[in-house]
């Protein structure tokens, strides 16, 4: 059978591969791609030896700062980031959870000020992946992997 890319190649930009299919739309949300004017193609439920089913996102002419791209490490730690120039992979990046995380994670403490007034959340990573723990800057309580909720960018 002829080998064929299910999601077409890009000339320049960033490819995010090995995203768990169930997290694909959250990754799009965290990176704010729904508001991007770049050309973006994505696929989901593609076959993957590593994950069973995976998602992939290709963004033309877009390169992320490490702090921005690392935010997806919370929900897709195994994702592979490939930087593309002229159809070639010129750099592979490994994700690490950023030391501070602003605005994308909801504090699990229902009495935290961030859950009652319009206050942007801010966490310090005190234990890194895989079983990460995030310390809330405001209420000083820990939000862990099991209780992670992502705040939507679509507000």
């Amino acid at each position, binding site marked *: 059978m002829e080998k064929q890319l299910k999601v077409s190649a890009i000339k320049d930009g960033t490819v995010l591969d090995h995203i768990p299919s169930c997290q694909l739309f959250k990754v799009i949300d965290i990176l704010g791609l729904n508001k991007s004017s770049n050309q973006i193609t994505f696929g989901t439920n593609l076959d993957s030896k590593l994950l069973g089913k995976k998602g992939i996102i290709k963004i033309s002419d877009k390169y992320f700062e490490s702090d921005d791209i690392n935010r997806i490490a919370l929900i897709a730690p195994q994702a592979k980031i490939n930087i593309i120039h002229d159809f070639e992979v010129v750099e592979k990046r490994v994700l690490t959870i950023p030391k501070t995380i602003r605005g994308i994670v909801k504090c699990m*403490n229902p*009495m*935290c*000020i*961030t859950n*009652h*007034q*319009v*206050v942007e959340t801010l966490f310090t990573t005190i234990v890194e992946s895989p079983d990460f723990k995030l310390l*809330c*800057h*405001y*209420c*000083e*309580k*820990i939000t862990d992997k099991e209780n992670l909720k992502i705040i939507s960018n679509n507000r």
Partner: protein
Amino acid sequence: MPKHLISIHDFSRDEILETLSLAREFEKNPRQPILSDKIVASIFFEPSTRTRLSFETAANRLGARVIGFSDIGNTSVTKGETLKDTIKMVSNYSDLIVIRHPLDGSARYASEISSVPVINAGDGANQHPTQTMLDLYSILKTQGKLENLKINMVGDLKYGRTVHSLLQAMSHFNPEFLFTSPDELKMPVEYKEYLTNLNIPFSETKNLSKGLDDSDIIYMTRVQRERFTDPIEYERVKNFYSLNLSMLSGCKPNMKILHPLPRVNEISQDVDASDHAYYFEQAENGVYTRMAIISKLLGK
């Protein structure tokens, strides 16, 4: 940027010791009107007796004038004003803000909005650093030192913010802890991890009579009804511990009983006359330590 006191971590070991020695000076001479040109705003979104009165006494003793409220019923909060807007306005009127608020993290948020120093007088179940400072002052005064003490914390170790802050503050001084609580109210894992990481020894028991004889400080706490969402759980644990005079016969002579007050049934009234009881003096110490904190944050 103004210096605030929101969490006990905001003060280093040296700053804690400096504040305590300043408190000692104020205790020797409590009438020092060094802040007669200052206005202190005392804004209490939640009820309080000791904390509010001792802060206002401290500010008055320093010669400052006090504005504020102790009941949000008379304020624009009832009209839906956000904390941000209240703080913006109050920081324009005053030189320092003392805030108590029912939400965790509210004081940290207030400090980021305010243009003047903010002191946290209790943010929900999170921190109450001035209580910790007066607890440290009481320990220092009664033991003559802060180092190498055995501290037995009793009661509600899960929701009690004073025990959490005291544990963190004492970690500078090589303590040993015993945690006495029912299973439902055990010290949370994150604080035990914190101690483990610092190699500070601790043990846990359900039995109050077990840890009394070799403790230097017994820190009693009330089981706080307002922290429980389940009234049945509250009823089950509320009278779990009651310290009475007959239990203190084998205690070390230097041992003192502290309690952030108000107490309900956890310390029997027959303990009040004992040499070990220190909780009322402890409350008085709140005025001197708060004088020290206010004057330190206002750079006097």
